């Protein structure tokens, strides 16, 4: 899996800001599809790719 930057935003605003700041960013929920596709190189965040975890922020 290619390297990415992992964010755990505390608020919705933080999450939106994190996603908006990076073209390749994705929201991470359960991960069932996204992580599988990242392993396969289908979803390949570049070295600057961001992943914002939505499990721990406000729902």
């Amino acid at each position, binding site marked *: *899996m290619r*390297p*990415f*930057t*992992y964010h*755990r935003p505390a608020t919705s605003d933080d999450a939106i800001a994190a996603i908006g700041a990076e073209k390749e960013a994705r929201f*991470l929920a*359960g*991960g*069932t599809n996204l*992580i*599988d596709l990242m*392993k*396969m190189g289908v979803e390949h965040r570049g*070295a600057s790719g961001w*992943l914002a*975890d939505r*499990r*721990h922020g406000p729902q």
Partner: protein
Amino acid sequence: MKPDDKTRIAHVTRREFVGATVLAGGIASIPLAEAQTDTQDTHLVRCSIIINNQAHDLTLDPRVTLLDLLRENLHMTGSKKGCDHGQCGACTVLVNGRRINSCLSLAVQHEGDKITTIEGLPTGGELHPVQQAFIEYDAFQCGYCTPGQICSAVAMIEEVKAGDASAVTPHVSEQAAIQFTDDEIRERMSGNICRCGAYPNIVAAVRSVYGRNAA
């Protein structure tokens, strides 16, 4: 090879052999790994996870899956890596009591979560009732899928008790108690593949545990 060498090799377990081989390979590739770290500026993430009632404070590469954390970092090799793509269920563990495929979950996602693996199911030296039932009903052949099957069954029984409907539950709108039929067991355990085909005995084992609890 001298005869005494042969004797010594015979006493090395498969796990020791694989471990030593992987270690040797790892040492050979260390310069490469360091070079990658320098150029790619891998950022590490701190997280605290409770695994089998034991708190772990970890600093992890965010790419590490929960399964790899358990197996490679913490050496809890009960959870198995079958397909590593969420198809086989061999990696099933419990997160806050719910079953998930640990291969499709990043370890850093589980900040503050309570993880239970097959190693954490026994209490006070006694096997969990589902583990005991798998032995009684001979619910495995090679055993590779078994930790995942057992973790899955433990959570699945709780799902039925909580009234969660499955695809084969009839009359969902009537909200009657779910009948724990073999169809229900097969449907609900369908995320756990057994290449040996031990399904009939797995179904029997799971059925027996539910009957015991209900009685």
